[in-house]
């Protein structure tokens, strides 16, 4: 495979369209300028269409790749030629994405993850437009899983660990994703309405006048219910589009294999994570999901961009039993998920309470002082008092969540209330330790222990661990490392 290869010729259909879309503002501007100048210069209006198409074709002609001498090389560009080259053993992940148009033509786009921290688009190895078969072949070549898979073709090569179940959709409205989507949609809609002068025509004053005839006690619940319905519908839609047909499989022998993820309704995504690069899992249980008995799992994996954390999602919001089984399978031991956690003691609890209740109390005080002085409505202090109660409940929950353990070679840390997470990280995946303590923390003998790692969020943080416990945890997981610095 030493000769240079091109992308699939069918990309000749896609690139020009893509470029055209990118040049749309310019095309518009040219068009408007053309009509404004009286339609004399017809030929240069065409320029706006010809140039993008030409660029698209050029991009196809100039992009080539090859695998040679243990390196993958990608060459592109006409005027400024760009050659990217990476040793094969630095390839950590392979992401195969197929947007709807690509799927129509039987093409995919391959992204090779090498664990680099550079962010520039130019520095990524993206092969946009390979036929599905060739993309799979390339992936197998890149990840060296291929020989093993070919060798034991008779044995069942793929064991599905997780198969999507449509009933999981019920968990979709319980995550914050729906809110984010709704906010985005509402923002877009209001902008669109604004652009077309819609607010002038809709007569919001008349709406307000209409609403005034209703009772507040009817209008507010009605608005809330309406919002809830919209949010649920949108989040269910997002969930289905992203996670339809979710499939998690494992190939290859015990530890040397790889994990394959496949998902998506319109745009299908396939991600392959090399076994050695999966350092641990992170089980997320946001409040809503937790109450409904659900959760989701991310892999802590090296080589994925931080921005592409979606690729590392191992289990979409799903029932707890499923989450537990899949996470256990990825870790190869359920130990880290079940292990009892060591609590962080009374001082950590006090800190949770002061940090949550303190600001709420301050707000209450300020409001209480302001009510007699200014003409604030009387119900504001009541609202503030409610805030204090909520803060106290949050603090209690946060305290309950805090904990850490060392189980089956994994550092396990749990924290958070609204967004509770349980991270399990292989001790081998821990790069270094950071111990951070403010003066307040030192006074009560607490420290925040951070295990740095090269995957996922780059760090696993244990909040407010009593100092001796923190040192014990760090020392037992990396025996020789810390001892030499302990005075």
């Amino acid at each position, binding site marked *: 495979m030493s000769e240079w290869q091109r992308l699939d010729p069918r990309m000749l259909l896609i690139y020009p369209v893509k470029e055209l879309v990118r040049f749309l503002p310019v095309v518009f501007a040219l068009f408007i300028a053309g009509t404004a100048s009286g339609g004399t210069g017809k030929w240069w209006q065409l320029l706006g269409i010809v140039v993008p198409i030409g660029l698209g074709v050029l991009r196809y002609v100039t992009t080539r790749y090859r695998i040679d001498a243990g390196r993958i090389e990608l060459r592109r560009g006409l005027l400024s030629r760009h050659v990217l080259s990476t040793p094969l*053993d*630095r390839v950590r992940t392979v992401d195969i994405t197929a947007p709807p148009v690509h799927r129509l033509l039987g093409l995919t786009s391959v992204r090779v993850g090498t*664990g680099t*921290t550079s962010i520039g688009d130019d520095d990524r190895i993206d092969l946009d437009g390979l036929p599905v078969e060739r993309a799979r072949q390339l992936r197998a070549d890149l990840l060296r899983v291929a020989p093993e898979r070919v060798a034991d073709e008779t044995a069942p090569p793929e064991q599905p660990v997780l198969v999507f179940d449509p009933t999981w959709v019920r968990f979709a409205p319980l995550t914050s994703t729906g809110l984010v989507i709704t906010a985005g949609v509402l923002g877009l809609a209001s902008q669109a309405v604004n652009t077309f002068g819609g607010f002038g025509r809709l007569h919001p004053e008349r709406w307000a006048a209409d609403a005034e005839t209703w009772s507040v006690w009817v209008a507010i619940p009605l608005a809330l219910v309406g919002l809830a319905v919209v949010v649920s519908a949108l989040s269910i839609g997002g969930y289905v589009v992203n996670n339809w047909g979710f499939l998690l499989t494992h190939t290859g022998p015990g530890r040397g294999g790889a994990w394959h993820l496949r998902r998506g309704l319109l745009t299908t995504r396939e991600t392959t994570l090399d076994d050695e690069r999966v350092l641990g899992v992170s089980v997320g249980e946001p409040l809503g999901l937790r109450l409904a008995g659900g959760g989701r799992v991310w892999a802590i994996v*090296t080589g994925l961009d*931080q921005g592409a954390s979606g690729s590392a999602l191992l289990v979409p919001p799903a029932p707890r039993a499923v989450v537990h089984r899949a996470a256990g399978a990825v870790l190869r031991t359920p130990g880290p998920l079940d292990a009892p956690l060591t609590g962080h003691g009374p001082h950590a609890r006090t800190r949770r309470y002061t940090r949550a209740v303190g600001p709420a109390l301050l707000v209450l005080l300020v409001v209480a002082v302001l009510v007699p002085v200014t003409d604030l409505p009387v119900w504001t202090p009541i609202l503030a008092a409610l805030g204090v109660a909520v803060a106290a409940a949050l603090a209690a929950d946060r305290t309950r969540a805090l904990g850490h353990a060392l189980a089956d070679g994994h550092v396990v840390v749990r924290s958070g209330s609204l967004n509770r997470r349980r991270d399990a990280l292989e001790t081998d995946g821990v*790069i*270094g*330790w*950071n*111990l*951070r*303590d*403010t*003066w307040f923390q*030192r006074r009560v003998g607490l420290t925040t222990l*951070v295990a*740095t*790692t*090269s995957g996922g969020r*780059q*760090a696993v943080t244990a909040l407010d661990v009593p100092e001796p416990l923190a040192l014990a945890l760090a020392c037992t997981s*990396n025996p*020789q*490392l*810390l001892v*030499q*610095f302990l005075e």
Partner: protein
Amino acid sequence: MWALTASIEGLVVVSVVVVAGPVTHWLPLPWWVVALVVLVVAGYVAVVPRWRYAVHRWEVTGTAVYTQTGWWARERRIAPMSRIQTVDHAEGAIARLFGLATVTVTTASAAGALEIEGLDRTRALLLVDELTLMADSVPGDAT
């Protein structure tokens, strides 16, 4: 060096407050607020650099690097030699005034960079060489 940096920062804050307050009447600040700010800044300049210096320490052994930085929030960082990826040597404008340098040791984790500030320049260069050699001699790809 820290004292000078702190002094400059403090000077900027004070001048901003003075200009914003009584001089231009842009912000209606009474004189005692200005006095308070000056007092706080003076205290900061007097105490914090010394505090910082007292906390700041570093150590290199055969297998790991250790730093301790900060003043109010103290941070101790430990990175094993086998995980070191790059060793940077940098000299800021103020640091060069004093012939000092900063050595930054990065690992594969974005959360794990160790910074040793305010080293004597020759010592820093020695340290960089030493660390590079030691990191080189350990096999593996440091992730």
